[in-house]
């Protein structure tokens, strides 16, 4: 039996210049928030940007970007939805809405292949992927099926997070997968972190630190409504995405 979807994924992603998986082996470090805000910041910076939520079981990017989950328009495939009038968007949640998504590994792979094979992306400078936590099916499949995939790794200053994130960096290093850099999220004043040392250990850069922000929901709502990302928080995200954009030149 031959799976014909494998022969069309490269064609579907051909209009995308860079594909970046926002990843972390540790849950709860703010991957989805970083992915959503980075998509908004890149779009704000004039880059054509898409966001693909591959965290099927914990899909949340549509909530962060306030995307209305209508079935997609069909042409010669399905068209991504539009978030914040500027970010192209696709997620399993478009089909599952707010229901639980109980999938085993082989179903995760099937769903990912289907979304990659039928979604028709317009030309994009960046397609960010909101990855689930861990080093499981989604990350192994992404490495296998997404040509030229790069990784943006998210951690917090917590010792626990840094330890778990190091395992992902070690694997990416072993596989020689390109890592754009490390982002340290939820940094409080006076935080003492070894994130920079961790980045250096694996030959990558600490792209920036994002301060812990009490007003995160408010800032996200502003961003989703098309307003620029505000305050120190917005400045940090913009500075990180500027470094991401510059890393591809």
């Amino acid at each position, binding site marked *: *039996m031959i799976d014909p979807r494998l022969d069309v994924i490269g064609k579907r992603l051909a209009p995308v210049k860079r594909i970046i998986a926002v990843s972390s082996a540790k849950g709860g470090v703010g991957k989805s928030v970083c992915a959503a805000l980075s998509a908004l910041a890149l779009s704000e910076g004039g880059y054509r940007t898409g966001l693909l939520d591959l965290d099927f079981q914990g899909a949340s990017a549509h909530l962060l970007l306030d995307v209305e989950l209508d079935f997609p328009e069909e042409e010669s*495939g399905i068209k991504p939805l539009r978030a914040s009038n500027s970010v192209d968007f696709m997620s399993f949640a478009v089909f599952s809405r707010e229901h639980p998504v*109980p999938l085993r590994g082989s*179903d995760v792979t099937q*769903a990912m292949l289907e979304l990659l*094979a039928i979604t028709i992306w317009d030309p994009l400078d960046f397609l960010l992927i909101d990855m689930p936590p861990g080093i499981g099916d989604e990350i192994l499949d992404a490495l296998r099926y997404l040509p030229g995939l790069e990784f943006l790794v998210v951690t917090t200053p917590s010792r626990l997070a840094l330890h778990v994130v190091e395992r992902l960096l070690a694997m990416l290093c072993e596989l020689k997968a390109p890592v754009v850099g490390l982002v340290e999220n939820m940094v409080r004043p006076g935080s003492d972190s070894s994130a920079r040392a961790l980045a250096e250990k694996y030959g990558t850069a600490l792209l920036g630190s994002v301060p812990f922000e009490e007003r995160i929901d408010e800032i996200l709502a502003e961003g989703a409504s098309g307003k620029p990302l505000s305050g120190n928080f917005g400045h940090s995200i913009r500075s990180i995405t500027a470094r991401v954009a510059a890393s591809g030149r």
Partner: protein
Amino acid sequence: MHEWALAEAVVSTVERLYEENGRKTVLAVNVLIGELQHIEMEIFSVGLKNILAGSPFSPDVFHFEIEKATFRCNLCKGDWLLEQHTDLGEEELEAIHFLPEAAHVYMRCPFCGSPDFGLEKGRGVSIKSVELEELLR
């Protein structure tokens, strides 16, 4: 019309096999269509003809076989068919049409109610075989 995207995938595979095998004439492409995805065969065929325009392959060499969808519960080991799910609404069927794994969102084992089941066969579009001409020298 996302059937067109799947038809394009089938043609891309045939194109690859054609090139990899010294451009031998393609005699038959046997495509399996899983019942679960509810592919509209007319739309799929129109898409296929459109995509094949100008290619070395005739639409006539494409043959389709519909495969019934069967499920097995990982918990109680019960087996069942798609047609036993008479409870699925239009929205749910549409979601499964786009993404067959949405079946795990909207379906449960009819015997024990578990969401932990596997699709044994009949998922979506796959290619059973491609027959190429043997060149006689």
